[in-house]
């Protein structure tokens, strides 16, 4: 039953380990070292105080199966965060269980399904516009639904008429991102919601872009029934190189009973856990979700307060619109609508020299900037999706715009230079086809290393 050895496992001194990981860290771009304008990712400053608070032993050393009366501080925090997120988003009730945005989507769709099922028919389809994040259709499938894709119009928006064409009594919900992935506010959202509601469907809002809306418009007022919020975007928790994040879900009051367990209830000043709720979709994650991330988001919200959050969205809009103005002319702007917190350009002007979005992205690395999100959304061919966030200064935006301008000139004068970029990074363009063709997914000792 016992093993003798863990073959291949390291045998190193602590200093060797630290040097190794310190060296690796130097190979990364990060918000604290460079401007990181990834669209739809909201790469804002991750405040230091959040990290200090999350490491307090009274939070970091809690056990999830301790009796509720011995973790009252934690439960108060969770209960309070639910209420604050409800206020910010205009929803009635919030669950903090989902570990990430995609799990939030799945949870939200499960809630919708449970409610519709109780009404007699869980229905079969989810409508998703062509501008949606890939997680929307993937989550729909996982929840047992077929996906119906609808096109956005030439201004980048979903039209009520288009929804009406496909809306029927077998559509469970429409998933919408607002502002959408082009950074455009879906002005028709209330009309769209009416169409969906009239046929007994529900409106799901992908809240990935909530950073554009605080103090400007509340999803709860737009006819939205369910939404998820990415705490690692709007609420400043670090992305960590790919998680952990958190994806709380907000719902309108009539859906409260279907939220996942456990729920936190307050009575006589005490907080207790409710696990046995017959209408609930059940449990989507062990314990309480990503508590450490929830602590950071709570800290961020009370640090900024209501006014600070409103200013956050205003400055996010100011930065995005400023950058958009600075880049107009040098790059093609496929949708001239006013933008919110992000804007989308394409490589159309550079294409005639054979320079693509990928080349522009790689050349930006040489200028010391992380590239924008590329080739997304799919509706804008060769998209460069730029989200500066509110925590960047005018000087940084100017420097980025200058680099983008310089690359546009290089694309005309010396396209080979751009096409062979990057030239200054630790490694050059990597052979991804080879990685996928013959996957090498772990290190294995060679005969030589063993002897």
């Amino acid at each position, binding site marked *: 039953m016992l093993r003798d050895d863990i073959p291949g496992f390291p045998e190193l001194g602590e200093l060797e380990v630290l040097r190794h*990981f310190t060296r690796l860290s130097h190979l990364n771009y*990060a918000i604290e070292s460079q401007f990181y304008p990834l669209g739809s990712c909201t*790469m804002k400053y991750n405040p230091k105080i959040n990290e200090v608070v999350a490491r307090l032993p009274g939070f970091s050393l*809690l056990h999830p*199966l301790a009796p509720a009366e011995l973790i009252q501080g934690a439960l108060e925090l969770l209960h309070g965060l639910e209420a604050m997120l409800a206020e910010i988003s205009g929803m009635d009730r919030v669950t903090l269980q989902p570990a990430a945005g995609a799990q939030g989507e799945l949870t939200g769709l499960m809630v919708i399904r449970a409610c519709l099922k109780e009404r007699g028919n869980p229905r079969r389809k989810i409508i998703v516009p062509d501008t949606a994040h890939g997680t929307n259709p993937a989550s729909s499938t996982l929840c047992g639904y077929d996906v119906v894709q609808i096109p956005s119009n030439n201004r980048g928006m979903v039209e009520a008429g288009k929804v009406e064409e496909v809306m029927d009594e077998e559509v469970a919900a429409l998933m919408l991102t607002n502002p959408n992935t082009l950074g455009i506010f879906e002005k028709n959202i209330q009309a769209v919601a009416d169409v969906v509601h009239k046929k007994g469907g529900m409106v799901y809002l992908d809240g990935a872009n909530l950073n554009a809306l605080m103090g400007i418009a509340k999803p709860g007022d737009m006819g939205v029934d369910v939404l998820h919020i990415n705490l690692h975007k709007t609420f400043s928790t670090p992305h960590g190189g790919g998680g*952990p994040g958190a994806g709380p879900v907000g719902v309108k009051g009539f859906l409260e009973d279907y939220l996942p367990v456990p729920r936190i209830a307050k009575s006589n000043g005490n907080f207790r856990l409710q696990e046995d709720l017959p209408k609930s979709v059940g449990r*989507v994650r062990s314990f309480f979700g990503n508590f450490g991330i929830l602590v950071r988001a709570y800290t961020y919200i009370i640090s900024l307060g209501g006014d600070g959050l409103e200013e956050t969205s205003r400055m996010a809009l100011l930065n995005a619109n400023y950058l958009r103005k600075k880049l107009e002319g040098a790059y093609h702007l496929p949708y001239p609508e006013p933008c919110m917190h992000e804007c989308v350009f394409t490589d159309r002007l550079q294409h005639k020299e054979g320079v693509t979005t990928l080349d522009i992205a790689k050349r930006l690395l040489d200028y010391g900037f992380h590239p924008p999100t590329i080739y997304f959304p799919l509706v804008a061919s060769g998209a460069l999706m730029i989200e500066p966030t509110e925590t960047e*200064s005018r000087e940084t935006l100017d420097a980025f715009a200058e680099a983008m301008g310089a690359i546009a000139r290089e694309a005309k004068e010396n396209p080979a230079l751009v096409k062979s970029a990057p030239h200054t990074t630790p490694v050059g363009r990597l*052979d991804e086809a080879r990685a996928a063709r013959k996957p090498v997914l772990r290190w294995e000792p060679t005969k030589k290393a063993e002897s």
Partner: protein
Amino acid sequence: MRYTPHTAADKERMLRTIGLTRIEQLFDHIPAPLRERASVSLPAGLTEVQVKRRMGALAARNATPEGWHFFLGGGIYHHAIPSAVDAVISRSEFSTSYTPYQPEVSQGTLQAIYEYQTLLCQLTGMEVSNAGLYDGASATAEAVLMARRLQPEGRRRVLLSRALHPQYRAVVSTYLKNLGDVELVEVPFDRSGGTDIDALTKSADAKTMCVVVGYPNFFGVVEDLAPIQAACARAGALLVTVTTEPLSLALLQPPGAWAADIAVGEGQGLGVPMALGGPGFGFFTCQRKFVRSLPGRLVGETVDHEGRRGFVLTLSTREQHIRREKATSNICTSQSLCVLAATVFMSTLGKNGMRRLAEVNVNRAHETRERLAREAGLAPAFSGPFFNEFVVDVKGLARRQGRFSAEKILPGIPLARWYPELPDSLLICVTEMNEQEEIEHLVRALSGS
């Protein structure tokens, strides 16, 4: 504002560049009824000092191992974490970077994940590891979903051991119920605390999609995987093992040695603080032949145009951003920073350190169970072998909670809420953090009635 750098002059100048005079013009295209109701009604912001006081007050109202005698496990474990771990994951180059979509400037994160995949394969004895999932419970659900992709439509019955973590069983049920075609069947446990092999062997047949067992299971018992694997092999079902305490695999024959098809679990025990159960990470390993059905991220080795070794995210045609509704999963995170913590943890302890730590856990837990039997008269509830957790029956457990709290002891996790058939059973976890003196407290607290 604290986190926005704009001066009044900046704002004015930027607005002028855009061609506006007031900030509000940036959003006057939004319908007025929405704008009018949008104000965020929350208290004013706090200074850092105020924030620390307020959060400190909340933190002070929670019981931690610093003030309590602490014997809780059940899926989340209190282990010593070398200072080097937090030093590395606190580096902003790791913590404030995004998913490594631009590999030229993400080699740090990518190589660390590649090392993690290597270490996990070595620890579990499996051939392939992904980059990480949310937690052990959702990793278990993803394992069942993967079995559904791998098995023909005639096999849609899942045999779940009742000795598998109850919250994991609950999450599996939540994930599967909307797909409509999968039936979950519970297999009982026997007096050893392990899965009832006879019942399992009888249930496993040509309709069985997969068998899911804990290793060690929720009672801390190390399942005998040989007959379980044999039952799976005979029936043509896939064997999924679930490990909530990964440190145990430094000492036990790993799932790979028992020919498990998929081995998943919770990675928190490898250098991630308990934090009320999250964030940790789910680990997910499997046989190589299943790699194109894997959920989640994978890092692979390759070269750049000059032949230099480098790492990239690979086999991404499985994933949602390419395949959309046809993806193997909707997941697009890997709890990367927690995975990094585990990588540093395993690298720092190394093969000898991991083994020694596992031995300390085994020894203290076994010694504690013996003393409880000898000095407190508490018989073990189960006879099976165990790692660092075990179950004892304590008469009148429910009414003694108040006294435990008064004595500032958290002696274990009462099992009755999930197992009505075990009304007086207590799941006790003993790790390297429990010194002799604390174990004596436990024996005293559980003595008498």
